[in-house]
């Protein structure tokens, strides 16, 4: 394989990604500490957690808007679109590659190119994370920050309660995404190669 560099992650994307990653990690830690806090063993005091959580939540929400705009005006957005037809087969092919082909040294079924920087699994998980999960958490989070914005009662439950449950569930899936995201990014010839890419912008193969 020839050794060439692909410029995949433009600077705005890398800045967004860095800030977003930091905020989301803090959000997860403080979120867990609020939800599972214990008076006797406070990891982080509730008040500090709330403060950090609010601050990072606002920064990450602004970041999310920047990400949306960036994807809209640059052509980074095309990587987040996928066709339904044949989707299952493509996902399966990629999964089989991670589970078997990768160990056998088979070539990547969907090699990285400038036009196609994500494999099908990345494509769908990034699209779901960025267009479903993060917006859900951002909107419910704003609702909790400004409870006067949300409906008082809905289907016999308090609006705050529904919003809070959706927020926790969304947060859970984002954490879940992050865990897999972090691991999958380490799959490659060198476990650190992809991490370097998201810092420098260049993908080396």
């Amino acid at each position, binding site marked *: 394989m020839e050794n060439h560099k692909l410029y995949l992650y433009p600077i705005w994307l890398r800045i967004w990604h860095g800030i977003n990653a930091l905020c989301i990690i803090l959000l997860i830690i403080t979120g867990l500490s609020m939800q599972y*806090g*214990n008076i006797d063993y406070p990891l982080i005091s*509730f008040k500090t957690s709330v403060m950090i959580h609010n601050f990072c939540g606002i920064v990450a929400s602004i970041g999310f808007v920047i990400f949306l705009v960036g994807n809209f005006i640059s052509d980074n957005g095309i990587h987040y679109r996928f066709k339904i037809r044949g989707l299952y087969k493509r996902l399966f092919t990629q999964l089989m590659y991670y589970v078997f082909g990768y*160990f056998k040294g088979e070539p990547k079924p969907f090699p990285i190119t400038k036009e196609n920087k994500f494999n099908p699994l990345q494509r769908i998980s990034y699209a779901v994370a960025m267009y479903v999960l993060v917006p859900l958490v951002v909107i419910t989070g704003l609702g909790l920050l400004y409870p006067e914005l949300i409906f008082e009662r809905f289907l016999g439950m308090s609006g705050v309660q529904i919003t809070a449950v959706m927020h926790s569930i969304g947060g*859970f899936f984002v954490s879940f995404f992050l865990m*897999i995201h972090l*691991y999958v990014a380490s799959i490659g010839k060198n476990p650190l190669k992809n991490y370097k890419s998201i810092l420098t912008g260049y993908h080396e193969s």
Partner: protein
Amino acid sequence: MMKYCKPLLLVLYCFLSVIFNNLYAQNEPVPLSEDNLKCASCHGSKYYSFTNPLTEETNRKRMNPFFIIDTARYVSGVHRSFSCSDCHSYDYNSYPHPSELKLEPKFSCIDCHGGDETFAKYQFDKIEEDVNNSAHRNAFGTQFKCEMCHDLHTYRPVARDEHSKIKHIVVQDNQMCLNCHNDLSKYQVLTDHNKPELLTTHSWLPNQELHFLNVRCIECHTPTDDTIMVSHRILPKDQAVHLCSDCHSTNSILRDKLYKYAAQQSRSDNGYYNSVILNEAYVIGANRNKYLNIISLLFFGAALLGISIHIIFRIIKKK
């Protein structure tokens, strides 16, 4: 067709709410008795009129706002079956009221309820003892009476009514304190001090408005006490609850305070910790769903397992 929809829905809504309100109407109000109506003709509104026997003119005057009795609430209060003159001298029937009535001693709650078996469940004597130890008594002595908080013309223990919404209980109970702590004219009956602004003294509490609509002042300003429904021992300010996790955790004090009535009525548990609280509010940290917890642990467990196996194979294959 569409243009009739909205009014029709409105009518339906009104109809349903009338039905529901009636279903839930607990303390059936009784109409004011003949005797009470006489007093209420003056004390029930902002204006009163009387015929001056000297000039034979009818005068219309403003009623002292502190002498106005909310008759709408009187008829659903606990003492609704009383006639005014059961507690006030019969001589009030004449107007102008005889001046020596100003000196008439007034009944206090304990005069009637002290040591009374009929009302044992309210533990009036324990309440009196608590009040005697409260910050208010320490500051003002017996000048600070039960009536400063409880208007016995309108009082109703809303929290004991199982149909009461927590939000209504909170509003009524906080009003008992805010009546005075937010009203300089009442506050300064007791002291010449300037009244501390509650919004500033509580600025450490985020989402203050939301909190004051969902928890009562006494949640933070009285100790947790298992032996009584409502502890009346208002603590000095430096002993007030300021730890968020006192409420925002599974062993939330709210279970033993605001939600005590509900918690005693239902021990049901549909998978939630503190499900009684969850029915009315979502208190971060106090409400958790057991099943969601298990499911999320399973998810993360499975993912970790998958990752570990993958790592092991990567290590093996590298060799």
